[in-house]
């Protein structure tokens, strides 16, 4: 498989991948319950709510209570999936997640839509860029940021049988579909392209931009070893180390603050095992603003051209 195999014509939002998979999980496993804090439509949880009303809990605009209820439901053997925006799934309820879920070791799946800049016009109050960092820091928390509809669908299905708390991060915009539903494995990187000159490690929406960047870089004679790290914790150290040993330099690309996110997680792996020059494509420690998703990605340095220039800088530092 290589970057040339991806020429998607279909687009869909990642949150629909979550909603569609949750509905299937509802049919497959009676232990699955859903909770939502007044964003059922936005989270695409309607199908689950309509078909399994006994197993769906509308909590109103009360996220702290939703998190606590989810923790309590696990005690009776349920597998709760909570749904709200990423901001309200993490920062607003950090202490509830910390004590009632993470420290208590509860099997809750915290499912978060509208992460990052690409929720668009609602602006910075809703555009959380710190959530990966917040969740990564919690002992025992698994953190997954899928890249398209298919991967979000597959990840949602996979976390049901993954014992322990999970933070699943996805988004609002319609986005090209290019991943396979069948090849997803929690904690295992997806190798998208083999290359020799630079490693690009990408997560979430920026995986697609990294494919576009890799195509451009190839035309300029720079071959990209492209890895999709969807599972930021536990991270696939082996895949990252193998790649940077081959290329000798690294770019990380994510829709998140440069602090706390994928870039830092990858840097921790390389600095420990095989230090290489790294360039960060990430938001530069600032809040977002209202705008169209793609315009925001451009303004905040997360565009295809930013990945290309970061790759060139990384190669130059070898």
């Amino acid at each position, binding site marked *: 498989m290589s970057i040339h195999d991806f020429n998607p014509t279909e687009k869909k939002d990642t949150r629909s991948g979550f909603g569609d998979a949750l509905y299937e999980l509802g049919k497959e496993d009676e232990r699955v319950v859903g909770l939502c804090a007044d964003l059922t439509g936005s989270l695409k949880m309607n199908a689950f709510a309509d078909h399994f009303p006994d197993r769906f809990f509308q909590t109103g605009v009360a996220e702290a209570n939703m998190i606590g*209820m989810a923790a309590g439901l696990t005690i009776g053997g349920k597998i709760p999936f909570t749904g709200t925006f990423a901001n309200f799934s993490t920062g607003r309820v950090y202490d509830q997640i910390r004590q009632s879920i993470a420290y208590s070791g509860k099997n809750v799946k915290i499912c978060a839509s509208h992460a990052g800049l690409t929720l668009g016009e609602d602006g910075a109050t809703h555009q959380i860029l710190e959530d990966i960092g917040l969740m990564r820091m919690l002992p025992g928390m698994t953190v997954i940021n899928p890249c398209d509809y298919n991967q979000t669908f597959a990840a949602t299905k996979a976390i049901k049988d993954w014992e322990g708390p999970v933070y699943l991060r996805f988004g609002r915009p319609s986005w090209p579909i290019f991943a396979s539903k069948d090849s997803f494995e929690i904690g295992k990187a997806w190798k998208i392209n083999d290359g020799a000159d630079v490693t690009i490690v990408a997560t979430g929406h920026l995986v697609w931009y990294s494919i576009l960047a890799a195509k451009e870089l190839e035309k300029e004679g720079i071959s990209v070893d492209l890895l999709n790290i969807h599972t930021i914790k536990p991270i696939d150290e082996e895949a990252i180390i193998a790649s940077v040993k081959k290329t000798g330099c690294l770019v990380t690309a994510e829709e998140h603050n440069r602090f706390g996110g994928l870039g830092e997680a990858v840097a921790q792996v390389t600095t420990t095992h095989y230090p290489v020059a790294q360039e960060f494509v990430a938001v530069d420690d600032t809040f977002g603003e209202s705008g169209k998703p793609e315009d925001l990605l451009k303004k905040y340095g997360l565009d295809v051209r930013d990945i290309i220039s970061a790759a060139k800088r990384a190669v130059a530092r070898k």
Partner: protein
Amino acid sequence: MAELTELQKRSSQVRRDIVRMVHSQSSGHPGGSLGCTDFLTALYGEIMHFDAQHFSMDGKGEDLFFLSNGHISPVWYSTLARSGYFPIAELGTFRALNSRLQGHPTTAEHLPGIRMASGSLGQGLSVAIGAALAKKLNGDDTLVFTLHGDGELQEGQIWEAAMAAPHMKVDNLIATVDFNNRQIDGDVSDVMSLGNLRAKWEAFGWKVLELDGSDMEAIVKTLHEAKAMTGQGFPIVIIMRTEMGQGVDFMMGTHKWHGVAPNDEQLAQALQQLEETEGDY
């Protein structure tokens, strides 16, 4: 029904455990623990159905208890040990390094009897609602009990949960408020008044019972009454008037023993007032 005198004997022993545990590490919360001793003794000794010998996290077919105000862990640990959940001798490890009896209750150390960490206040009612809803989904007609501090009711999450339980008709839940009107910085009515607490719960849709938490007979009677009210479409809350430090005269009538341990002399003075009925650990 266990004889009242048996429950009272258990209470006296639990109180001895509390002051000895807190003294041993010069650390912990004796005041609220002593105030809720009769309640927890009655709950575990008379009201709840559970299998202490075979603790299971899911607690299917058993009544569940969540201590939301986790800082009064000494009274819970003593009650659990003396109910058969773990060896009584282990009470001697309270708050020490490598103990299962952490300062605040945790599931991380796998201490039988504990199903949720607590300490950061305001979270237990939400958890209890979730556990109660799971029981309904499982066709399990046992009950869920909670205990909350009155100061804890200043946390907003409590009122999110208070709104949710009646809306969702969680009628297998009996919450109790330890209403001693004391918190760390002083009287609750001075720090942040709860106003008309009964009216608040009623306005949220709860059935409210009140009781004197120093009267064992009243506790047993009221808890039985609360149980008889379950299954009727509404949650139940008991506002339990208590005295912080109950049973140890110099710890009563003040908030100062909320989180302070007695010294050697004070311990001796406290133990003189509490009969050793079941043998110290």
